């Protein structure tokens, strides 16, 4: 909302010492923010002058050399405008003038001195939409009776200042100059002046020849009056200039008055050409598929959600949004029907979102004051009589199904103090309400407050408390900490611990986007699920909620590799989404990706499967799942993984994730990934950390190397050793693998630790067990002890 200082000054006497910035800042302090506060025209050193001589430039076919009298002196100015001529009254930008297009400096143009510039309206920075064709083609011609030597902006009537407010959506009342005047009145403790609503009516009655028929609940108030014998012409300067200052393009006096009254009162109006309208106005919901040609000459297809104004046959306007072409006020219009009405805010909002957001729809959407609906009608008649020579027909067509009452709220002083946390006296509270224009009855502990209908945002006690806070000054509230019992705060320690563990293991934490392309959502998983998609995505690249985090991590890998960062060790904890039997489901997942060098020594170690497996084991151990997990090769390995270098992660019999190398078809580089469903994993209980007795007697260590077939796995050997070793064998670990020791065979060397917690072991008894182990491995796995 652009507020013109001149405009609002019609309704409130602001202190002359107040700068436009002061006003804007004080409005901000009561909750009304602004984007801009300053002059309407940002130009300096402009002065009116008269062209007293105008000769052709000796060295140009279009330039003129002029002498311009600016009162204090006569300036030589070279001018290129086609309409420059002797006797014109013009606006001169003097040496040093700052215009939106740059600074004007003295100079020599093709050998002739030029000490300024004669301006066009366009050069003053007025928005293009306000420019007439002649404003774009040549210099501005001031009326011939213009005084010379005065401020050029003032001569144009543009010596106004404006504030561009960014209002909150509850303050529909501030979308009017009068509403602004009330707000400023509350701030500066000033009264708002009355608006002139006086006009004469003829003896006729509109109801004799015209009727309105409201057929929808979406219209709660509808007024129509008739004005006849209007003269369509240009508006007076003050109307045009105030419309321009409010960012509305002047058209003709009648259209301008409708806009002017809307700006004043906040009530949008519509004027119809009465002679093209017929004798009835109907308000109804459109039928689905009904069409209407709007003012912008576009054919609109409507639905039953839209409210239309129609005559007996067809829709002629889109209520609250835009008029129709067929009944538009034109240059030859003689008689008009004035409509002032209230339509359902939500319906108007829906229609305008679909078709056009306008000054009118913006006001309907925020809710209107029914008293202003009447006021705007009266004001409209008054101005049409005064500035369009209209005769106002007596009577009014009126449909009123709206609550016109003011809101009355009882409020306790203690409640105000307790919510705001301030000490404030009853007198101060009453004074604040009165400054806001509310009426207060003092009933002792309780105040009975009547809120005028223009403040439709105030409905409950808390709204009144906010009003007190706004005018008292929210910032004057002294901060303190709440007096609450000391209790234990809680947070998710496990997630933090996992993140720290992984960082300690050299991984970096990423946060990537939840939204991915639908083409990616089933990648990096073999799970069957229904993906979750967006209704109206920003792009195809972000139309689906991810299920696995791995495609995101792979994107991060590619992004970094493209920037010559090949050593990527990253992890992310985030949500994965799907639609399952129980509806929409989100699960927390941990994904890891590793590629390139892992350690930072001179001799770098390239990441391989066993690095990422180590990370997995370290993590599962840390989370308490030691000895409870295994890797198995099953049908759950996604197609994006290398079938020979990947596995499912099983914890306590539950599949919690996958680990492996990317399939060469997915990625040519050696990239290793892992994903664990943390929601699933962490639902598996772990034991608590407890002291276990350890043996105080020495252990006996034994090594054995076996030659086995290539296909024999470490797990198979370990299983046999452990079974044969019994309870005294407390630890077994593979310490060496030698491939192709003979064709098709490899050597696997194990270290075994034998301990008894209650006594020292005898070498002989350990040898017995050791021999049994060798025997079992040899027979069960077709192995040979390596000599």
């Amino acid at each position, binding site marked *: 909302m652009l507020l013109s200082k001149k405009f609002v000054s019609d309704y409130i006497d602001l202190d002359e010492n107040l700068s436009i910035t002061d006003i804007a800042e004080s409005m901000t302090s009561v909750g009304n923010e602004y984007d801009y506060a300053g002059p309407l025209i940002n130009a300096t050193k402009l002065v009116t002058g008269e062209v007293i001589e105008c000769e052709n430039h000796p060295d140009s076919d279009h330039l003129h050399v002029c002498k311009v009298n600016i009162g204090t002196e006569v300036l030589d100015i070279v001018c290129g405008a086609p309409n420059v001529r002797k006797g014109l009254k013009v606006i001169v930008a003097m040496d040093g003038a700052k215009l939106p297009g740059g600074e004007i400096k003295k100079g020599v143009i093709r050998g002739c001195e030029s000490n300024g510039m004669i301006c066009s309206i366009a050069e003053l920075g007025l928005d293009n939409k306000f420019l007439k064709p002649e404003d774009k083609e040549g210099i501005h011609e001031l009326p011939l009776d213009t005084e010379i030597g005065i401020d050029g902006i003032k001569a144009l009537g543009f010596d106004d200042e404006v504030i561009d407010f960014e209002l909150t*959506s509850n303050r529909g009342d501030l979308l009017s100059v009068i509403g602004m005047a009330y707000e400023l009145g509350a701030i500066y403790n000033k009264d708002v002046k009355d608006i002139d609503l006086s006009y004469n009516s003829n003896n006729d009655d509109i109801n004799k020849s015209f009727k309105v028929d409201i057929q929808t609940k979406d219209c709660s108030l509808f007024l129509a009056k008739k004005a006849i014998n209007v003269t369509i012409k240009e508006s007076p300067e003050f109307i045009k200039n105030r419309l321009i200052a409010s960012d509305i393009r002047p058209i003709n006096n009648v259209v301008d008055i409708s806009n002017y009254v809307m700006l004043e009162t906040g009530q949008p109006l519509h004027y119809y050409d009465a002679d093209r309208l017929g004798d009835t106005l109907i308000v109804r919901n459109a039928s689905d598929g009904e069409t209407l040609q709007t003012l912008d000459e576009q054919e609109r297809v409507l639905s039953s959600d839209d409210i239309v104004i129609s005559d007996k046959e067809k829709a002629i306007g889109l209520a609250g949004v835009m008029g129709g072409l067929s009944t538009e006020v034109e240059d030859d219009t003689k008689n008009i029907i004035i409509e002032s009405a209230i339509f359902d805010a939500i319906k108007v909002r829906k229609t305008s979102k679909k078709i056009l957001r306008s000054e009118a729809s913006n006001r309907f959407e925020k809710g209107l004051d029914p008293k202003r609906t009447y006021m705007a009608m009266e004001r409209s008649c008054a101005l049409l009589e005064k500035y369009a020579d209209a005769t106002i027909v007596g009577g009014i067509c009126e449909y009123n199904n709206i609550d016109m009452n003011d809101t009355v709220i009882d409020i306790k002083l203690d409640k105000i103090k307790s919510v705001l946390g301030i000490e404030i006296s009853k007198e101060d509270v009453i004074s604040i309400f009165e400054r806001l224009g509310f009426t207060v009855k003092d009933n002792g502990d309780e105040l009975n407050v009547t809120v005028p209908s223009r403040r439709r945002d105030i409905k409950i006690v808390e709204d009144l*408390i906010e009003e007190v*806070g706004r005018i008292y000054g929210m910032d004057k509230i002294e901060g303190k900490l*709440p007096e609450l019992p000391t209790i234990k705060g809680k947070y998710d320690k496990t997630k933090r611990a996992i993140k720290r563990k992984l960082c300690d293991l*050299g991984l970096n*934490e990423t946060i990537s986007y939840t939204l991915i392309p639908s083409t990616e959502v089933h990648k990096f998983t073999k799970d069957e699920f229904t993906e979750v998609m967006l*209704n109206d995505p920003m792009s195809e690249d972000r139309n689906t909620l991810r299920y696995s985090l791995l495609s995101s991590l792979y994107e991060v890998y590619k992004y970094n590799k493209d920037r010559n*960062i090949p050593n990527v060790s990253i992890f992310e904890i985030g949500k994965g989404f799907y639609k399952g039997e129980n509806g*929409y489901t*989100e699960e927390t997942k941990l994904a890891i990706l590793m590629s390139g060098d892992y350690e930072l020594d001179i001799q770098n170690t390239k990441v391989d499967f066993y690095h990422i497996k180590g990370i997995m084991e370290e993590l599962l151990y840390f989370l308490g799942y030691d000895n409870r997990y295994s890797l198995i090769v099953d049908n759950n390995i996604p197609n994006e993984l290398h079938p020979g270098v990947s596995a499912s992660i099983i914890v306590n019999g539950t599949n919690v994730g996958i680990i492996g190398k990317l399939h060469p078809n997915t990625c040519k580089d050696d990239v290793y990934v892992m994903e664990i469903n943390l929601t699933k994993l962490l639902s598996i209980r772990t034991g608590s950390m407890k002291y276990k007795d350890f043996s105080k007697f020495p252990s006996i260590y034994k090594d054995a190397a076996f030659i086995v077939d290539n296909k024999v796995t470490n797990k198979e050997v370990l299983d046999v050793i452990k079974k044969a070793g019994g309870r005294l064998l407390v630890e077994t670990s593979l310490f060496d693998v030698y491939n192709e020791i003979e064709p098709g065979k490899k050597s696997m060397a194990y270290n075994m630790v034998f301990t008894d917690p209650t006594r020292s072991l005898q070498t002989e008894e350990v040898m017995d067990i050791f021999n049994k182990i060798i025997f079992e491995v040899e027979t069960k796995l077709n192995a040979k002890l390596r000599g």
Partner: protein
Amino acid sequence: MKEKVGSIRESLNTDIKEVKTIQDIVELKSKYIGKTGLISELTKGMAELSIEEKKEFGMIINELKNEANSLIFGKEEEINNAILNEKLNKEAIDITLPSKKIKRGSLNPMTRITEEFEDLFVSMGYTVYDGPELETDENCFRKLNLPLGHPARDTQDTFYLKDEVDEYLLRSQTSTAQVRAMEDNTEKGPIRIVCPGKVYRRDEDATHSHQFMQIEGLVIDKNISMADLKGTLETMMKHVLGEKTEVRFRPSYFPFTEPSVEVDVTCFKCGGKGCNLCKDTGWIEVLGAGMVHPDVLTMSGYDPKVYQGFAFGTGLDRMAMFKYGIPDIRTIYGNDLRFINQFDRKDEE
């Protein structure tokens, strides 16, 4: 006897000068102080002497023995030291060669900033609440006093799910945690929570990412006021942005709080003097807050006549951008390792 002692001493003094290796020492020990060495031999010869002589020579021999021990063992230590020194010299390394680094991983700066907020509030007895990102329109809007068609919905262009418009969505604000926390509280008693998390809006430029992070706070009890809100936010902003930070309240409007305020902090770049970051105002708008609207309390089962409370919400990305001086929000979600790796050390206290 005396001559013998004299000649042994003379020969020892000569021999000791010739000693070069540990082997020489072994030989010397055997020649002089071993069981069959020269000095032992002398002792054996004393058997024939008288008591007086035994006494006299005993002392002389002892003296010789001590002298021999000291000379030989001294020399031995000297040689051992030389050997050790030689070994130490040989083992000397180039200490300027690069270290065997433990690879360093970094937490994401968003995690750091989130935890910073969490830690403060946990220390004040708040519970960190984790709500779902995929939400219902009811929890995200309707129960926050934003019915369908409410104009304030305009500021949050929401991602609805396919075939679920006005029903299911990606949460556009963590304020939805207010509803969840109140509904979850079956006893309808006091609440003290913060909820950090991801939120989503149809918006993307240098200061907006379609995915970003917010933190929501909610305190409900019987005597909570705007003054408590202000004190809490002052504590919070000083904790995150530094002790000198000041907080300013401006009235504003949010459908789910009444009264509502926008909260500014003193510009941390210029300290409030005015600069390009704060557009010469000295203040930066950082969050929205207010007293929970009675309708919001009622909709989630709280009696607004008994309970009142405050709520606030702020953008964690913006906080990270302020704190670490990150110019473009898209950098945060770009996941360039050169970015993430900058946040790998302990913060200043």
